[in-house]
């Protein structure tokens, strides 16, 4: 249970055919007036064809920056990938030219963004916006691309797709706009779909519909999905494997059931503890007491953090935690965590709070 093989050794860079995307020690930094922000500071994972991988964490932990790094969309004036590698189907993306990246984006790797309200262009019809990718990547003519766009709208279950294709985003509801985003992202049948908080801005009732639609289309088209979210409820419903990020680093990785039932990292425990849940057998509306919160704030990423980034907020922290960075190593089959105190964490029951009692 506590064999300490480091992850790099356990999962060597030699890819098997099943791996479509392989990220190794990715580091993306932003340059601000106040100094360098280490938004992503050593992220490593593989994505299998057709797999659903969730990346979880609070805002500002580097989830979205990881996604943008994969697509090569880090604004060049603000920041850049300073280290590591991203291999996609045999191609190294970090050193690839802009024109090659352009042929990959929207074609073989697509992205869905959080805000359906602002992510669609208000002055172009949704049909134009969907057919644009088809005209760029599949060189369809206007007519054929438009017909295919209507098919895509039907695929994402928008009623009356012929009429809707000619409408502008402001004429559609939030849920419909996110369906349009999905149609746009899947139009060219990509191998990888990166969805950055695709349901966060939607009504709860719509959220499940959109998630189910994504999963259904994924199965139908064989797309691998990287789903970025801060919502463990979404994770539980969709993911096969989960990565938990904190302050630009990975703190835990495991298959979804294993992660939710046996979290090894105090931060993961904190996230699980903050989900509202009914006690089994308790009357309706009654949760098991007060929701647990993780006290303290995400640290500033402007200074290099010598030890574990979560240490200042962690109830298990020791002196070593603040000086030495814990390695990301295996603590079980396909279960990795970066924590010096896994044994002590595991000894405590899941319902106990993880915050430091300061």
């Amino acid at each position, binding site marked *: 249970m506590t064999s300490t093989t480091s992850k790099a050794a356990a999962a060597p860079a030699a890819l098997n055919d099943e791996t479509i995307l392989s990220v190794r020690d990715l580091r993306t930094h932003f340059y601000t007036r106040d100094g360098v922000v280490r938004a992503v500071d050593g992220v490593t994972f593989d994505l299998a064809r057709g797999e659903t991988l969730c990346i979880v964490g609070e805002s500002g932990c580097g989830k979205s920056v990881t996604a943008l790094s994969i*697509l090569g*969309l880090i604004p060049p*004036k603000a920041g850049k990938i300073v280290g590591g590698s991203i291999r996609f189907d045999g191609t190294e993306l970090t050193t690839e030219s802009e024109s090659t990246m*352009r*042929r*990959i*984006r*929207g*074609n073989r790797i*697509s*992205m869905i*963004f959080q*805000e359906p309200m*602002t*992510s*669609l*262009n*208000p*002055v*172009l019809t949704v049909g134009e916006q969907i057919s*644009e*990718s088809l005209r*760029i*990547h599949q060189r369809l003519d206007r007519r054929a691309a438009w017909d295919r766009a209507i098919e895509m709208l039907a695929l994402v279950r928008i009623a009356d797709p012929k009429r809707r294709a000619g409408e*502008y985003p*402001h004429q559609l509801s939030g849920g419909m706009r996110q369906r349009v*985003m999905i149609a*746009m992202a899947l139009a060219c049948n990509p191998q990888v779909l990166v969805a950055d908080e695709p349901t966060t801005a939607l009504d709860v009732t719509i959220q499940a519909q959109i998630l189910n639609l994504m999963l259904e289309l994924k199965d139908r088209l064989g797309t691998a999905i990287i789903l970025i979210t801060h919502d463990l409820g979404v994770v539980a419903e969709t993911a096969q494997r989960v990565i938990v990020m904190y302050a630009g680093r990975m703190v835990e990785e495991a298959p979804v059931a294993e992660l939710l039932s046996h979290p090894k990292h105090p931060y993961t425990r904190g996230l699980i503890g903050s989900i509202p849940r009914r006690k089994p057998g308790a009357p309706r509306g009654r949760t098991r007491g007060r929701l647990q919160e993780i006290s303290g704030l995400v640290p500033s990423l402007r200074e290099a953090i010598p030890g574990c980034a979560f240490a200042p907020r962690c109830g298990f922290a020791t002196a070593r935690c603040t000086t030495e960075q814990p390695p990301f190593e295996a603590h079980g089959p396909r279960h990795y965590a970066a924590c010096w105190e896994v044994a002590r964490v595991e000894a405590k029951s899941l319902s106990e709070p993880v915050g430091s009692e300061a």
Partner: protein
Amino acid sequence: MTAYILRRLLATIPVMIVVALFVFFLLHLTPGDPAAVIAGDDATPAEIEGVRRKLGLDRPVWEQFGVYVMNLLRGDLGTSIFSNMPVMTLVMQRLEPTLVLAIATLTVAVAFAIPMGVVAAWKADTSVDRVVMGFSVLGFAVPVFLVGYILIYIFSIQLRWLPVQGYRPLSGGIEGTLRSITLPAFALGMTYMALIARITRASMLEVLSEDYIRTARAKGVATPSVLLRHALKNAAIPIVTVIGIGFALLISGVVITETVFNIPGLGRLTVDAILKRDYPIIQGLIILFAGAKVLVNLLIDISYTFFDPRIRQ
């Protein structure tokens, strides 16, 4: 959409009524007896009385106004005091050079300013951006007549590419007209260009930080198409608005430009009329310029519907 255009169209009516009122009372607001003012300093009382009767100034004010408005609606802008010609005829004689100058200026300014602004926004905070913005500051700071003289010195006197002064009417062939109007259009267009380039840059910068631009890039859209298809159309409304506002600038600029380049247009007619205190001509020109400005703004309002589908509703 039709309702929107109709609303805009109706909104121009009160504006034109106010302009007509103002222009009519212009004469009555000048200090002293309007008839005496018009007749000039050396006029005898009999001459002043003659002017009064001729202009109908002896009748009650409301009646004068009624006659004035009726005449306006028939396209009668009055009669020049000095040449005794209908103001409308004088205006029509001078209209072509000014219209050609205005259109050429607008074309030159927009054709240069929008690409400049787009590139400056795309390359924001680089040397390209600074060159464009430096040029834009210069365009504001240097007066039209100075630009005019510099252009004449370089392109007409030194290089001998273009005529120094004067205007060739369209009836003598379009090439001659274009050659005679090129330098004036650039001289007058400089300020205008600076203004449009600046607002294009600002508006584009704002749009380029929008989420849908990131979406376009994530779709694999190439930069030129991101800038023009996705960004510029969204940035268009402030740009066309400034083009409309700049039209007022153009009218005052026309007077100076026509003087520098010796073009017999409405600007020169205005200056001459003011110097001679030929009130009917001045009044007619104010109505005309105001009407042109209202018309341009109407066109701009209507153009919004082309750029933004949300206004069509």
